[in-house]
């Protein structure tokens, strides 16, 4: 699926390398599957992997990651020995193959991230600017990729509207390279402005990357408090727009256009902008979003031992208060009925914990007070952080409070997962974390309105009260030595 060729000497023989998107094993012929990485990130990764396997190669021929290719196909496209840098496109100008000097690729990784991978004319012009030398642009006379579909079997969703985002970023990069003699000093900037949970993941990923390819991030200014609390090393470029509505009323490409308008010409001139919202389906791999983002920022994550989910958490804390009484903070409201922890289960949990002498607080749910829980307000990040410190454990849904408490505060947390993937948004279990669900065969369905199986407004994949209470007591025992 992800393929490339190494050329030992100009005009010499070829050595082929085929890779696939990893589903977890990260075998030597697999590449990490990152939903937030644009196609160009895979061009860079392929180049890295091929260079590592063929260090003496002079040239690398990298197949377009958007296409399901193999070395056999790539080799069949070449007409004679490779004589120099080239870009091969289909009949209509869709890039098929990038042929570049291996040294150039290694030295220009962060600039190559602005390749569109959907427009050969733009990519050709950008590459000539970066290389400072002519590059042969060849067209395959017969092959026409046609209209690239909205989603593909290999996990991409790069329909025509999304392709425009990539092209705009490439066009901007061309402008910088062609107009600014100091383009090598221009910063690389991540475009990933929303939403709250994703901002947390990106910040934690940036803290966890040794040598990021980026130094700045475009973020909605409404997330200033989250950025401050998350301590991302990426310098924010504040986008003074409300974040993308979650109801689908504004498309991501539409929003991107508004964002560029608002950011203004100056920001465009001073930044190689790379689109790093979702380009791929996050649910096809089991990796956590923080690792997805680490790959986007430049980590190769070639083996399982590189993954944060298989290492100790970056941050771990715990409550200093006495464990009598044990205090639990709940966040059980996900914004949409199907994302809420079912209210009947919630009542059973709260009543049972109260009977065990455990004090519970629930964020923003006064209706649950009669079941033994105090309702508190924590709609600002600092209020949430303060509330958390007054509790031994946090129990939350797949939403911002959970991601923030677990990852930024490092607090002992339990994640409740219904329609979304626990692997992607919850992650590995350790002393301070576990993700619960019922492992129904429909999980994760990603539904946002009603259950696609049982048709009701509640998700039956949420953990049963017994399981949740068991997990709370287990975690309290492990971290605090609590025994009721």
């Amino acid at each position, binding site marked *: 699926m992800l393929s490339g060729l190494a050329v030992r000497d100009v005009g010499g023989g070829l050595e082929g390398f085929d890779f696939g998107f990893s*589903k977890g094993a990260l075998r030597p012929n697999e590449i990490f599957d990152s939903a937030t990485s644009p196609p160009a990130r895979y061009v860079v990764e392929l180049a890295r992997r091929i260079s590592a396997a063929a260090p003496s190669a002079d040239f690398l021929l990298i197949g377009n990651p958007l296409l399901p290719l193999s070395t056999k196909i790539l080799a069949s496209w070449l007409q004679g020995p490779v004589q120099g840098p080239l870009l091969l496109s289909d009949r209509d100008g869709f890039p098929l193959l990038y042929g570049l000097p291996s040294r150039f690729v290694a030295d220009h990784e962060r600039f190559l991230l602005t390749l569109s991978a959907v427009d050969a004319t733009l990519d050709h012009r950008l590459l000539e600017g970066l290389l400072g030398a002519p590059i042969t642009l060849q067209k395959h006379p017969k092959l026409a990729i046609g209209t690239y579909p909205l989603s593909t079997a290999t996990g991409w969703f790069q329909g025509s509207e999304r392709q425009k985002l990539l092209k705009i970023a490439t066009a901007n990069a061309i402008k910088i390279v062609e107009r600014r003699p100091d383009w090598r000093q221009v910063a690389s900037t991540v475009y990933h402005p929303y939403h709250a949970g994703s901002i947390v993941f990106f910040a934690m990923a940036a803290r966890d990357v040794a040598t990021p390819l980026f130094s700045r991030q475009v973020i909605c200014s409404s997330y200033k408090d989250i950025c401050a609390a998350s301590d991302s090393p990426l310098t924010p470029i504040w986008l003074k727009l409300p974040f993308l509505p979650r109801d689908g009323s504004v498309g991501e490409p539409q929003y991107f256009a508004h964002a560029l308008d608002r950011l203004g010409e100056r920001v465009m001139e001073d930044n190689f902008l790379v689109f790093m919202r979702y380009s791929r389906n996050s649910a096809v791999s089991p*990796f956590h979003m923080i690792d997805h983002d680490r790959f986007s920022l430049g980590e190769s994550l070639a083996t399982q031992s590189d993954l944060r989910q298989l290492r100790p958490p970056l941050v771990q804390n715990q409550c200093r208060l006495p464990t009598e009484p044990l205090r639990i903070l709940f966040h059980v409201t996900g914004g949409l009925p199907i994302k809420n922890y079912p209210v009947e289960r919630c009542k*059973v949990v709260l009543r049972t914990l109260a009977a065990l002498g455990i004090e519970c607080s629930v964020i923003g749910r006064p209706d649950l007070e009669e079941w033994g829980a105090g309702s508190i307000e924590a709609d600002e990040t600092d209020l949430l952080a303060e509330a958390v410190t007054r509790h031994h454990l946090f129990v939350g849904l797949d939403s911002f409070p959970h991601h923030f408490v677990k990852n930024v505060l490092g607090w002992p947390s339990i994640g409740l997962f219904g329609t979304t993937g626990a692997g992607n948004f919850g*992650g590995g279990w350790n002393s301070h974390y576990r993700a619960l669900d*019922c492992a129904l065969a429909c999980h994760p369905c990603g539904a946002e309105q009603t259950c696609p199986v049982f048709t009701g407004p509640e998700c039956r994949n949420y953990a049963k009260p017994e399981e949740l209470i*068991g997990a709370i007591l287990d975690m309290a025992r492990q971290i605090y030595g609590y025994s009721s």
Partner: protein
Amino acid sequence: MKILAFFETGYQAGGDDLWRRLELARPASRRLFPLGQPSTLGTYDLADPGQAEAVVALARNAGIDGFVIDCRWQDGAYRHDAALLAPFCRDGFGLALLWHNGDEPIWAEPLLSEPMLARAEALADCLSAVPAQPVGGGLALIVESPKQWRAAARVTGILRQAADRSGVGALTLIANRAEDKGRFVEQGFDALIDPPPDQWHSCQPSNHATGLDFLEVLGGLRDSTDYLDRYFAYLDFTVSRMLNRSQRGRVLPRVFPAFHDWLAHPGGGATQLVNRSNRPADAQLYGMFLENAMLFTERHFPAGDQVVFLHSWNKWQDGSQIEPSQWDGDMLWNATRDAIDRGRYQIKCKSNVMPAQNAARRDTIAMMCDAARQTLKQT
């Protein structure tokens, strides 16, 4: 976490000519899915070691740890085909057995008898030749019809003793039943396994035949399969199998990508699982079923007992095969490999977690939750 796939060993030259029968099988209705035909591995002959090795290699490559092969009493002796696969059972790959005990009335007798003891010895001798993929510390023996044993506790006892004497060692006895209700584990079984789709309809069928349907079938106005067979939505069928699963006892999951056994039911009574767009298999839904079955098993069974059964590697006759086929290519094989990779990765991501509470504690919590539910009902 082990993945064991049910395996048909009948594909041998000079055997039942299963390939030929598969090729000749024709559905009698356009609503029935045609049976697949093999592609990558071809119509292999398991008696040829080279071809058998290729089959095992492809299964291993998908992440499968072993096969479950049939064992039955036939012509005065217990028989299985472990010898065909034994040369390739190494490096973590091994076998388990499905014992078709339903044809043996001797095991239904209420009291132990000399013939029964002799039969147990014969079974144990037969099992001694099996290169096992250990489950729960022993050779896994799935008992297809455990309800037939009227003295199940005694039978499980003599089987274990016989296995011990014959050198088989520990036996892990698995009852082919969906729910324990204290009946099987208490009588010496180690676990249960979900029955196959034809033996356990885990949800309501999507076709509810009426008397009018019947009359229309008789009148030639309606396809008889609408009345005679049972159709199920694959998603409903599989979700139902995982719903409230922990309340059914120690039941190991059986995962299947598709199922339509019309070949075995020419007169009606077939079980047909149907996916969206009227397709026999959906790689995504099947992958989710397999991955979640692995995650459930990891959470609810002790480390050595964690097995998920795949139905099946090559049971082409009921449409459940994951071997590459001419229709689907390697879609289901890939889905299997991907789901196993995803499941194993997530299981690996669990570290430094203390063992869960003991059973007494769990029971107390369950009682307290029930009390809270009662209060909830009253209010």
